[in-house]
């Protein structure tokens, strides 16, 4: 035996690390290798244990008295024929129970009961009538739990012995004072009050995380917070003239509280009680608070409204919650709808409206005075770093502006799907000024920002104009979701996407079908230290600083694309503010077209901040008070001079290119798609990519195309994603993705690391385009379609019918057994969800 082998395996932490990757059968095999291996493998094997609801009686209870013969009961219950099998099973179960009682001191994580309604407990027929005969009897050495998940479920029409389940829960808590994570998610019994009583009687000083999935009823939240507040005391610390509250109770460790409502619970009672309580609220020392599926609306009488139809701020649930959690760092008060969302015929936005029926009724349920709630939140919870207020309607745009301005330096995560009160202007609080501007300023406070890592703005279509600014100026972004927020492709081009560390991206890209201009101008307002979207009228006031987004494509893009792909990236090219190509030419076309970087450099060269800002009286509408840098996406025009002027002059009243523009027409859609794929291909750390879109999509009175993800439209640029991409979701896109060429490409480039069958087939066939008939399964032939050849033959077409698409998918599934493909039919098209589900 080599010394390194023996040495490595003998180190307990290494051995443990290896065993943590093994499944149960492998662990039991390891338990028979040697004594050292046995001790560690048993330790790992017994770390986690699961007791289904129907076995709770066997493992955690015993009969109070032997009133009837069990065998007699069993024979009567099962009949002679099944009794033998029953006996065998019972004998086997007895051995499990014996071993459980012997080894349970090793258990650190215990799950009791089932955790979903679909797995309703089926009580044994011999027991259901004798439940009162059973009493809680925990093994005395079950005392080392760190995690307990209690999800006892009873079948609805079987008798429920609430005392038994309550006793078991209470005993588990009292017997395991070192619990760090407690999950309570019963169907009906025991009620949450049993838990609260148990926690009162046996305070868990090591508890870090408490998770409830139940209905708290009217007073439940108040009771819970009062229970938790009792165990924490606060001390006001003065630091740098700021006061902060820190818990001082020794041993108090609860950091996270998660409450998931099963229905659509309301905390109305909590709000009313909080309003009526004249004392200062007792704070709770929790740093992470999650409330899922709670209705934030409170029903009040009209007499509570003031003359403006507004309510006092103390009717806000959010207001009272923040006051109870002064050291909060993560506030998540929304719904977990987005987590479970799968491709469907409905857009994400429609999905939300179907799920939350109250949205129509409370579409603009902003009850308070603007800014009031935001200021109260900031005062109560100044340390927030993660905010999820998705689906909230009670914040004004002014509130969002104040919140994001305050939290921007420290914010790591913002989830704000379906919040229609937020406008692009407010969201832009999270985007720092451009590097060129920062250089010009000689520094900026945003350089010390922690850096936003997560952003979810799905179902907020108004926020589309801000999306490209995040891709351009927020390099720390790792998870970005914008489902149901169609963004024009041209806005996303003309610069390199800086967030190359992106791991999750969900985006809806609109591909233009023809050239038309569109003005989206962001300008850094020095006086207000923020980005500001300026209108076309404002833009015309200061042509020197204006760069417009124009979707006009007036030069051959394809040759430019080809020569620029792979070329070195040039930032802030100063050569052509009048450059001809538009942003569609993609990431590497800085030398020719990047008008926004050009804008930066030009404006740097031509307009100095101090000059501009001092020239005119500052006003919101005056462009002279703005900084020298204006931000827009690549405009385009062929002639020299100011692209903004050009765009303005060249366009007709409908926005269509005027006759003055050169008549160089290209295939907008294809070239733009290629450029988008180039940008996507740079995100080599992507693990999950969701692409939304629809062909013939009508939006903003125009018709749009979508990413087709074919080889002709740039699919091959996504090859670098193979390093890390685990899940690709494409829905409502064009069906051309299921062409055979594309299927082969996916099989070869995205799943090949696990696709041993495919790799073997490729090697055997000597490449992707040769095969011998029958060498691979091909459901196409069995279906009798026109698709010919065995699995690896190429027979893709420009367009495929639904039948051929199905056949191609079936072929792909046959090649890649570990690849899961989900289809969803939307009208005449099909959407596909590719993911790798791997068994553990």
């Amino acid at each position, binding site marked *: *035996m*080599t010394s390194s082998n023996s040495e490595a*395996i003998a180190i307990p932490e290494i051995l443990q690390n290896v065993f943590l*990757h093994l499944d149960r059968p*492998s662990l039991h095999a390891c338990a*028979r290798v040697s004594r050292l291996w046995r001790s560690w493998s048993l330790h790992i094997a017994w770390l*986690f244990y699961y007791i289904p609801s129907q076995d709770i009686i066997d493992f955690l209870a015993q009969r109070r008295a032997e009133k009837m013969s069990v065998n007699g009961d069993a024979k009567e219950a099962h009949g002679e024929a099944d009794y033998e099998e029953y006996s065998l099973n019972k004998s086997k179960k007895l051995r499990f129970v014996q071993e459980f009682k012997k080894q349970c001191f090793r258990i650190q994580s215990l799950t009791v009961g089932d955790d979903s309604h679909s797995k309703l407990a089926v009580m044994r027929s011999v027991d259901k009538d004798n439940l009162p005969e059973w009493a809680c009897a925990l093994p005395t050495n079950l005392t080392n739990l760190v995690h307990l998940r209690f999800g006892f479920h009873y079948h609805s029409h079987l008798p429920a012995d609430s005392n038994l389940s309550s006793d078991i829960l209470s005993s588990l808590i009292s017997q395991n004072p070192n619990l760090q994570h407690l999950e309570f998610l019963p169907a009906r019994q025991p009620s949450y009050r049993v838990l609260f009583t148990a926690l009162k009687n046996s305070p868990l000083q090591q508890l870090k995380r408490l998770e409830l999935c139940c209905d708290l009823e009217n007073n439940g939240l108040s009771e819970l917070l009062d229970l938790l507040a009792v165990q924490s005391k606060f001390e006001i610390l003065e630091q740098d003239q700021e006061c902060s509250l820190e818990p001082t109770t020794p041993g108090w460790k609860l950091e996270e509280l998660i409450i998931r409502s099963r229905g659509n619970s309301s905390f109305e009672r909590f709000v009313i009680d909080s309003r009526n309580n004249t004392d200062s609220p007792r704070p709770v020392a929790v740093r992470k608070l999650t409330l899922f599926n709670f209705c934030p609306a409170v029903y009040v009488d009209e007499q509570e409204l003031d003359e403006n139809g507004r309510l006092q701020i103390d009717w806000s649930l959010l207001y009272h919650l923040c006051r109870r959690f002064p050291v909060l760092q993560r506030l998540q008060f929304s719904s977990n709808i987005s987590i479970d969302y799968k491709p469907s015929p409905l857009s994400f936005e429609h999905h939300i409206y179907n799920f939350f029926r109250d949205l129509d009724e409370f579409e603009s349920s902003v009850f308070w005075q603007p800014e009031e709630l935001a200021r109260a939140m900031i005062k109560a919870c100044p340390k927030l770093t993660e905010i999820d207020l998705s689906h909230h309607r009670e914040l004004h745009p002014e509130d969002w502006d104040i919140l994001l301005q305050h939290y921007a330096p420290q914010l790591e995560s913002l989830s704000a799907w379906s919040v229609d009160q937020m406008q692009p202007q407010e969201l832009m609080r999270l985007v720092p000024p451009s590097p060129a501007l920062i250089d010009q300023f000689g520094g900026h406070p945003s350089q010390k920002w922690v850096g936003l890592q997560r952003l979810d703005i799905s179902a907020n279509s108004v926020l589309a104009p801000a999306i490209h600014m995040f891709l351009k100026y927020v390099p720390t972004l790792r998870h970005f979701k914008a489902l149901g927020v169609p963004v024009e492709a041209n806005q996303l081009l003309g610069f390199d996407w800086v967030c190359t560390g992106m791991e999750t991206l969900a985006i809806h890209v609109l591909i233009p079908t023809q050239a038309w201009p569109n003005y989206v101008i962001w300008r850094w307002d020095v006086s207000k230290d923020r980005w500001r979207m300026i209108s076309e009228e404002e833009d015309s006031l200061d042509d020197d600083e204006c760069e417009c987004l124009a979707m006009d494509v007036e030069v051959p893009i394809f040759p430019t694309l080809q020569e620029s792909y792979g070329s070195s990236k040039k930032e802030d090219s100063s050569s052509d503010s009048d450059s001809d190509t538009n942003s569609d030419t993609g990431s590497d076309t800085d030398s020719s077209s990047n008008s926004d970087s050009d804008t930066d450099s030009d404006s740097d060269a031509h307009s100095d901040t101090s000059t501009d800002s001092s020239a005119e009286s500052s006003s919101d509408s005056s462009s002279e008070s703005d900084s020298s840098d204006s931000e827009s996406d690549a405009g385009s025009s062929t002639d020299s001079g100011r692209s903004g002027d050009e765009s303005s002059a060249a366009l007709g009243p409908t926005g269509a290119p005027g006759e003055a523009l050169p008549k160089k027409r290209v295939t907008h859609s294809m070239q733009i798609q290629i450029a988008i794929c180039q940008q996507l291909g740079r995100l080599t750390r992507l693990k999950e990519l969701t692409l939304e879109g629809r062909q013939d999509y009508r939006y903003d009175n125009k018709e749009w195309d979508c990413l087709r993800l074919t080889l002709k439209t740039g699919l091959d640029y996504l090859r670098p994603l193979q390093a*890390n991409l685990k899940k690709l979701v494409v829905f409502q896109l064009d069906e051309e993705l299921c062409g055979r060429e594309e299927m082969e490409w996916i099989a070869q480039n995205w799943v090949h690391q696990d696709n041993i069958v495919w790799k073997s087939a490729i090697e055997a066939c000597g490449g992707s385009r040769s095969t011998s008939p029958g060498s691979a399964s091909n459901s196409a032939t069995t279906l009798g379609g026109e698709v010919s050849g065995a699995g690896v033959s190429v027979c893709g077409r420009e367009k495929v019918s639904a039948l051929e698409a199905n056949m191609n998918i079936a072929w792909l599934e046959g090649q890649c057994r570990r690849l899961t493909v989900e289809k969803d039919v939307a009208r005449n098209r099909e959407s596909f969800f590719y993911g790798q589900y791997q068994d553990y």
Partner: protein
Amino acid sequence: MTVILVSSDNQDFKVDKEVAERSILIKNMLEDVGESDSPIPLPNVTAAVLTKVIEYCEHHRNDPIQVPEETDDPRKRSNDIEEWDMKFMQVDQEMLFEIILAANYLDIKPLLDVGCKTVANIIKGKTPEEIRKAFNIVNDFTPEEEAQIKKENEWAEDR
């Protein structure tokens, strides 16, 4: 900025600081000594192994620093090794364990994880005797113990 790492067989390796600091041990050492050009000795790592370790760190230099996930279940998957890592770990068993030991000593958790996953994949599906043979482990159970364990495990393997 570069740092010089010295292997146990006195071979110098000039490495970018950013790459070297993928090792928490080295990172802490650099923080302790401050700005210094002194080479960092690594008496437990041979040149051959250090070459591999540096190769790994170079490839993963831009990976985000792994933050331990808050989870009650530290069990891990072994079937999600990246393609590059998989090829990187296609070495003989001696080198595999040397890399694991080095990763453990240098405190490079991702490399340690990949190494342990690779070992776990070797173990999976094997009988106890096959495992002993694969890793040259001596069976130190008495015959009676072995019989008892086998009997006990019969029920365990069914669950």
